[in-house]
């Protein structure tokens, strides 16, 4: 089958052709900006530029291109793309080509389905159909689906339009605003200034922090230096500068200092400092399991780190006393360490796991310990016949345990209550149920050794779903 060549590349079309140009020295949030290319961008308070995906999007906000400021290509390139601009609320109706539903625009980039033609008529007049724009499919994801509009009273065009006077008002994402950065810095008597931001207002150990600075001076900028934690990470001989720094894995600091220093041609210097606190709190998305919290000297201790399915895992590290003892490579959701622990009785080993995702975020597990004792905790495992059953079905539960001293008793617990007790070390099993109602069943095993020390393992969950 022959392919029809694309008549026009999407590239040349995406982005707007600016009709008028004017030159401007400095940018203020809310400005429209372009460089040598045709595309026009909205410069937002977070220092990023926003793309107009279509000309129609632009025209819901501006009547013409008269206020567009022109900067150099290098200056434009230094501004990160923040996202796409969306339709201004209350101005137009939209749809996608392959679905007949017509939507009004709500605040926060919402699309609100106009349920009947009658409502569309009441809100947008008899010629409402002429006010419907097709949104190209790839830009549908720039919007979220909001509540439906069932009657004209559900949607107030004028109020919604007035509530969003600028594109800034629709950029709901509360950008992780780095410490107060007074964006426009036109100090009255000064001859220049510096703007400085960091990619993460708060960091975890191992994070990559991106520092971005831009400076201006009437005499011209000679160079910009970026420092993180006291060391120089980047020197630029231009008016903008970006550098990356890795937050140390270990250390005693509770915060790090990011600093940008600009030196003007006339040797004026401008400096800005951002203090980045270190986030040491545990994440719910990474879990640490210690199979046996108490072991004997020379026995094998083990620690398992599981990453939540929502995390795109790049790597996982397991730390013992703040030293990485195991690193698992890309894509592995479960990382397991085990090794004999030879410390004297009474030694406490501290463990935690750190999961790094593909975009550099880290997730730290809570700390757990393994203690070397005179008696080790029994090792308990629970096996269930099925992890998912229908209502009315039964489920087999088997608990096995081992311990150097021998096991005297094994219990099976359901939701914390003992439902079966077996004497001795042989596996304890029973058929539970039938379970009549939908929900989750939590099973645990508990074992007691001959010296009286008992251990309960983590929950094993069986979900009960409706069969009919």
């Amino acid at each position, binding site marked *: 089958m022959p392919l029809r060549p*694309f008549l026009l590349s999407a590239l040349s079309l995406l982005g707007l052709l600016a009709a008028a140009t004017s030159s401007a020295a400095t940018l203020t949030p809310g400005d429209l900006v372009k460089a040598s*290319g045709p*595309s026009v961008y909205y410069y937002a308070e977070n220092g990023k530029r926003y793309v107009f995906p279509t*000309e129609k999007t632009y025209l819901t906000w501006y009547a013409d291109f008269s206020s567009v400021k022109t900067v150099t290509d290098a200056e434009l390139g230094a501004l990160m793309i923040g996202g796409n601009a969306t339709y201004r609320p209350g101005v137009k109706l939209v749809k996608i*080509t392959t679905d007949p539903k017509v939507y009004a625009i709500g605040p926060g980039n919402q699309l609100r389905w106009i349920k009947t033609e009658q409502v569309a008529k009441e809100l947008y007049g008899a010629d409402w159909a002429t006010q419907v724009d097709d949104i*190209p499919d790839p830009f549908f994801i720039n919007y979220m689906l909001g509540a439906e509009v069932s009657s004209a009273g559900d949607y107030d065009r004028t109020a919604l339009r007035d509530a969003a006077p600028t594109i800034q008002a629709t950029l709901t994402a509360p950008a992780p605003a780095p410490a107060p950065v007074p964006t426009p810095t036109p100090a009255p008597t000064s001859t220049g200034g510096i703007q400085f931001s960091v990619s993460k207002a708060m960091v975890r150990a191992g994070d990559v922090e991106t520092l971005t600075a831009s400076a201006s001076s009437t005499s011209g900028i000679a160079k910009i230096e970026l420092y993180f934690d006291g060391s120089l990470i980047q020197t630029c001989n231009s008016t903008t500068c970006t550098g990356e720094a890795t937050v140390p894995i270990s250390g005693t600091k509770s915060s790090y200092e990011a600093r940008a220093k600009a030196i003007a041609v006339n040797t004026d210097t401008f400096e800005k400092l951002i203090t980045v606190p270190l986030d040491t709190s545990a994440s719910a998305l990474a879990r640490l399991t210690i199979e046996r919290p108490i072991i004997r000297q020379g026995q094998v201790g083990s620690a398992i780190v599981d990453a939540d399915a929502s995390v795109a895992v790049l790597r996982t590290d397991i730390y013992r006393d703040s030293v990485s003892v195991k690193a698992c490579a890309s894509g592995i959701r479960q990382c397991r360490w085990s090794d004999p622990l030879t410390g004297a009785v009474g030694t406490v080993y501290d463990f935690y796991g750190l999961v790094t995702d593909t*975009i550099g975020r880290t997730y730290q597990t809570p700390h757990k310990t393994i203690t070397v004792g005179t008696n080790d905790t029994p090792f308990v495992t629970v096996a269930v016949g099925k992890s*998912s059953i229908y209502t009315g079905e039964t489920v087999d539960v088997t608990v096995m345990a081992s311990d150097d001293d021998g096991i005297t008793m094994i219990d099976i617990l359901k939701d914390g209550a003992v439902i079966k007790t077996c004497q001795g070390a042989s596996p304890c099993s029973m058929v539970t149920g039938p379970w009549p109602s939908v929900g989750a069943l939590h099973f645990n095993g508990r074992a007691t050794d001959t010296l009286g020390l008992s251990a309960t393992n983590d929950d094993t969950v069986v979900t009960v*779903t409706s069969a009919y």
Partner: protein
Amino acid sequence: MRKKLLRAGAALLGAASLALPFAGHAATTSAFSTGDLIRGETVNTVYYYSPDGRRYVFPNEKTYFTWYADFSGVKMIPDNLLGAIPLGTSNVTYRPGVKMVKITTDPKVYAVDQGGVLRWVKTEQLAETLFGLNWKQKIEDVPDAFFVNYKVGTALETSADYNAANVMTLTPNIATDKQFDETLVTITIGSVSNGFVPTSTTVKKGKTVTWTNRDIVPHTVTGSAFDSGTLQPGQSYTRTFSATGSFDYACGIHPVMQGTINVVN
């Protein structure tokens, strides 16, 4: 000037998504399965039908060709069924390891990692190590408006940080790239006239099928061996098919709505 601008805007509508010219009169079908490429009868845009029951948009032709060599596998389905399938929650991004990308207004060149994560290739030497001597031919421009489909991840420092062949092999399809659970299949319950979408689908044994009522009135999913009970708008019903065979079902309230699940090994 205004007139010219508007023309540019109209052309943009046609080119902004992946339009596929279908010369022949391919037969339409209402039988398609997770992982298929689908299009409607009148509009020639191609979508990826994903395990979450949504259709995912290819922002442009270049993105499509990182995943597929041609359009031979595309199934044409009736327009009303296509309309009943919601659009994806994100757009399809470049297949990892195939190309490097950049945006026109920023000189940084990025390698693509799983999940549409862009990783800055810091030096020319590194680009050559990762993508070979003709690495410059492997750089494509991503239009600014599609840059938001990507996330910027950590930069690549050494060749050990990224292996183009491996990352490509590990992401054989779009569902894997987006980390969808491929044991799931989602069927949309559209309006009475649209029925179940897809009407007929093939799943592997052991897969879990979820029906979601996206209509504005209640429906049921009723077969000889299973019954969802009444599903209000927005509600879902889930069943795992652990035996092979062909399972017919219908809506107990609107018997005209009928569907089939083919379970294969």
